[in-house]
């Protein structure tokens, strides 16, 4: 089928619209401002867990940001009260600690916990690099969660 100059112009226009709409859509998605770290996996006292750090930023909400740390029990069902702990920490763009929360422990049987803290309104770059804990029978082991990317609030 032979294409006319008009068809080619239409195709060029369509390609341009496709590219622009894709970039607009991509930009709006990334502007959501949340970065998740990789999961870290560990086994303590025969129980399997995973953890990760999260940083939330919202440029349009007065440059808000906060950090979260999650601990997830991976064996199904719930783990006993006090067996999991999580601590949020927020770093600046240079990787220096700028805020820390307080430890959050599961007060009752739970399958996962999330500790949210270090809320701030500031136009800057932040990352999250929390810690979690697991009961090993006579005390706690503390595990560093992987770091998130730096996100700008």
């Amino acid at each position: 089928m032979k294409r006319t100059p008009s068809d080619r112009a239409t195709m060029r226009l369509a390609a341009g619209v496709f590219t622009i709409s894709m970039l607009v859509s991509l930009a709006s998605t990334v502007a959501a401002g949340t970065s998740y770290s990789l999961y870290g996996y560990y086994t303590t006292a025969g129980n399997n867990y995973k953890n990760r750090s999260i940083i939330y930023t919202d440029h349009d909400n007065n440059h808000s940001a906060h950090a979260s740390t999650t601990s997830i029990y991976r064996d199904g069902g719930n783990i006993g009260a006090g067996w999991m702990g999580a601590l949020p920490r927020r770093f600046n763009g240079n990787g220096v600690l700028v805020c820390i929360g307080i430890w959050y422990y599961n007060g009752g049987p739970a399958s996962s916990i999330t500790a949210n803290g270090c809320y701030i309104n500031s136009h800057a770059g932040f990352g999250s690099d929390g810690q979690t804990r697991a009961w090993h029978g006579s005390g706690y082991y503390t595990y560093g969660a992987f770091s998130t990317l730096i996100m700008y609030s």
Partner: protein
Amino acid sequence: MKIISVIKVVGVVGVAAVAGLTVGSTVGAAARSYSEAGVSATADGKPAPVIAPDYPTNESGQTYGRIDQGVWPEHEPDLILVAAGNGREGYVAKATLDEITGANVSTLEEAIAWQEQSDTRADRVLIPVFENDGSTFLGSFEITKTIGEQLVAPDTED
């Protein structure tokens, strides 16, 4: 004939726009996802070993430095590098930090009691930031209240 051409152009451009939005949002969602990878513990459950950092020591015999990822709590320095609220970098005492954040909790009973007291805590606590001598005041560092969530799996037993 001209009307048909216009309809054709609008149709093609519309399809391109929808396709672009779909591809963009899909790529964006994929970029924010992550692969499940990484092992951070040894077989017996103790966190994976790392070489203890060789921190410098001040005249009072206190070690000081930054807490990088993967450092065991017992390997953290006496004075931890932070950025104060005024933007200046300095050090906070690990002992102070541990006491206020609940890092010293060491039994299940203490953990449950710690959690029961969470509502009584201040929204934020400021602790002093010093130079690496551990005594020259530089500013304040913020410890904030944590808002926790816990999920409970449904009981699957009948």
